[in-house]
């Protein structure tokens, strides 16, 4: 493409200007991670060839790994995957300088806090047993269809599946609510994420005060024990505050 630069500057996120990058650290496309530094703020950046489409699994991991590793040591404002500017100067002059106050305030608010994600997923057989024991209509339909369902009972099979699906959704709502209630006293703020799997029991991101982490982990361990055999509870993090850093204008 004539008149276009061949190389761009990939932007990961914004940090305070005293943050240093570990020497040899690489990011998207294995490029060394660099810092575009202004007075109070810096951006984590690396060069990227513009004729190379972005978005392989390695690219996605590289973006998140760098931000998450940074978030453990210093507050960071994460950018959405795929932010590219045409020069390092532009990162400073167009991104950092004009929005210095706004970014600095957001970083201050994140100081001492970290994001985690809780993801619970039902154990299929256990949750189906639970539903059958609570829902007599589903149990009756199951009896009717029998152990060897054929084409002739297709309508009934769809009916049964629909009942099960609705029951799973209702359970997900209740279990998500239970998780949120549990997290409320030990977290700063909570974001309920949409389910991304039909057996999701809950999918919630939250921001915690790092010094209160053991309270969070105790609470979640209690929940995992309570749900043991019925749903598996995963705690992911610490990570950058993806869910809580929002563009406001």
């Amino acid at each position, binding site marked *: 493409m004539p008149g276009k630069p061949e190389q761009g500057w990939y932007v990961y996120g914004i940090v305070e200007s005293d943050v240093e990058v570990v020497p040899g650290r690489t990011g998207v496309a294995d490029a060394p991670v660099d810092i575009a530094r202004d007075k109070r703020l810096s951006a984590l950046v690396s060069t990227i060839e513009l004729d190379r489409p972005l978005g392989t699994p390695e690219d996605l991991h590289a973006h998140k790994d760098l931000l998450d590793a940074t978030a453990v040591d210093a507050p960071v404002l994460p950018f959405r995957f795929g932010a590219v500017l045409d020069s390092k100067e532009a990162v400073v002059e167009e991104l950092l300088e004009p929005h210095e106050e706004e970014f600095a305030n957001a970083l201050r608010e994140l100081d001492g806090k970290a994001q985690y994600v809780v993801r619970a997923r039902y154990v299929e057989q256990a949750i189906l047993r639970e539903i059958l024991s609570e829902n007599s209509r589903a149990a009756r339909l199951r009896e009717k269809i029998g152990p060897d369902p054929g084409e002739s009972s297709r309508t009934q099979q769809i009916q049964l599946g629909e009942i099960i699906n609705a029951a799973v959704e209702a359970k997900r709502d209740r279990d998500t609510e239970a998780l949120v209630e549990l997290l409320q006293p030990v977290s700063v703020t909570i974001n309920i994420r949409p389910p991304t799997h039909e057996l999701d029991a809950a999918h919630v991101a939250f921001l915690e005060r790092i010094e209160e982490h053991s309270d969070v982990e105790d609470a979640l361990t209690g929940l995992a024990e309570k749900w043991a055999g019925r749903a598996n509870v995963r705690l992911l993090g610490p990570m950058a505050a993806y869910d809580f850093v929002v*563009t406001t204008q």
Partner: protein
Amino acid sequence: MTSVQPSGGGGGAALDRPSGSGLAEVVDSILDKGLVIDAYVRVSLVVIELLTIDARIVIASVDTYLRFAEAVNRLDLTQTGDSKGLPEVLSGAQESGAQKKVKGAAKGALEAAGDSVKDFVGASDGSRPSRHRSRSEGE
């Protein structure tokens, strides 16, 4: 400064504390969340082709219903926790990790969509991934 244990820090056996994120979990965090660069920068913005789109929404369909029905019909209600009598894939999967258990038992379109992001070669006009969150980009 208070330090954070990245994984395994004092959690009980019941709580799964993976040290890294799977691809689906990475996608959940970075494709539709975080700051949107074009809300801050316009002149020097470079539009680069993105291979990924965020198209994973749980939509129940007839396929989902039939799959649930099949799983229910396979269920041996005389067994309590054990999966004896079920296809091998199930009992085998029981022993491995928490995630695999679900995958083995219920590998459906949704899981596949979450795990194979690279297959979603979309956004051919070079635009950004589609987003379902409000307050996204101001085009």
